[in-house]
């Protein structure tokens, strides 16, 4: 395992005639939290989705450049299924399946073919504990996950992503639909998870980026404007556009 989970070089992406990413190059460090910030339409979510190849199903998308995941270019001769086993994703709105909490957590594990009840029980407990929600749901594992609060649902989704033991977790605005307390719980969870996972999180909340991440990338109009240690970005950024954005002068 190298020092970087991802090494992206000269990544360009077009939706039809519209170019959404321009020559993006960045290295995402292993087992650290990388935040991606920028105004709406800057390409940050597109970039995140490229990391587990979720954009390629969209018609008329063209891509050039390389994305190396653990040293291998995922844009060439790489099975998307294998990539997505290792790279979990958590979305903006909690999206539990209309099943029990238990079944939600082991959904991916079952697809992988694990059937042993004892093993599955272990995975459920371990994943829910890692997602900091075990104590809240341990007595109702077989009730519907959709009956939980938004913040709890989002942590169930995180547990579901963790159950398949990925090494990267991508999060697209994971707290934007949550109340402040649930937001802080998810933020603390992200902080705890980085001991075991590489985390890339897209966020509109700049205070959140400054609290939870080790490095921050600022995207604007499809360009990666600045990528540096989070402390540096939020105290003394190099680029005036970064400064203006984080200070709320546009966006």
């Amino acid at each position, binding site marked *: 395992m190298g020092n970087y989970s991802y090494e992206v070089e000269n990544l360009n992406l077009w939706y039809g005639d519209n170019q959404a990413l321009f020559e993006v190059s960045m290295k995402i460090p292993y087992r650290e939290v990388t935040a991606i910030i920028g105004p709406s339409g800057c390409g940050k979510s597109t970039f995140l989705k490229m990391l587990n190849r979720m954009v390629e199903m969209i018609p008329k998308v063209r891509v050039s450049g390389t994305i190396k995941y653990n040293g291998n270019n995922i844009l060439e001769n790489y099975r998307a299924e294998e990539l997505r086993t290792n790279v979990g994703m958590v979305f903006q709105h909690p999206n539990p399946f209309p099943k029990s909490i238990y079944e939600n957590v082991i959904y991916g594990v079952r697809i992988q073919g694990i059937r042993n009840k004892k093993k599955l029980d272990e995975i459920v407990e371990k994943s829910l504990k890692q997602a900091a929600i075990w104590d809240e749901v341990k007595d109702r594992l077989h009730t519907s996950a959709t009956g939980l609060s938004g913040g709890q649902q989002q942590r169930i989704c995180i547990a579901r992503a963790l159950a398949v033991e990925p090494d990267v977790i991508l999060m697209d605005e994971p707290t934007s639909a949550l109340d402040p307390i649930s937001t802080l719980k998810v933020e603390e969870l992200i902080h705890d998870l980085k001991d075991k996972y590489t985390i890339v999180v897209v966020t509109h909340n*700049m205070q959140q980026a400054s609290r939870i991440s080790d490095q921050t990338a600022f995207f604007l109009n499809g360009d990666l404007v600045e990528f540096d240690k989070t402390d540096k970005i939020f105290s*003394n950024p190099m680029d005036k556009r970064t400064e203006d954005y*984080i*200070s709320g*002068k*546009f*966006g």
Partner: protein
Amino acid sequence: MTTRRFFTEELNELQVKIAELAEDTKDVLKKSVDALFEKDIDSAQSIIDNDHFFNQKEQMINETAMILIAKQQPVATDLRRLIIAIKISADLERMADHAKNIAKSTKRLGAHHNITINPEIREMANLAMGMVDIAKKAYETEDISLAKELASNDDKIDEKYGEVTRELLEETANNPQQIQHIMQMAFTSRYIERYADHITNIGESIFYLVKGVSYDLND
């Protein structure tokens, strides 16, 4: 058009308050040195009585800065602007304290002493007041070359302080019966020297605001 118009306005207001406090700090030094030379005990007393005004202003600036940090959650330059507002107001308050200390020395010397007050003390005060003007301009225009200019002016004050100290030391040998008075003069020159050091600190704060890194103007 900025999206944070109110915040920008509030920052500007804070900046104006600091510039006003700097002007007041300069005035009080002038008054205290005038009182010293003119043996004006009433004026010295009024400087002492009004010192609380500087403490209040400092507190007001600190509170405004704290509220803005809490409400606006500023980062980068905006955050540094508020941090240095707190630091500069503390420096200005200390400068006013030194002017008050000069007024106390004037009181201790009394209205009827007959020792000559070293003219270098006036020169030091004039240089220090000039430094306040430079610092104010540097702060308002965020001009770090002006901030650096403060260091060379501070050196001139330090030199004069050295001269005054040497003269006063000779004086103690020649007029040992006046030693109490001579001591007050030595204190006074020391207060002005310290006053100027705080202006240099302000220069460093301005440098930090603009560049985002600390800088020692005394190096």
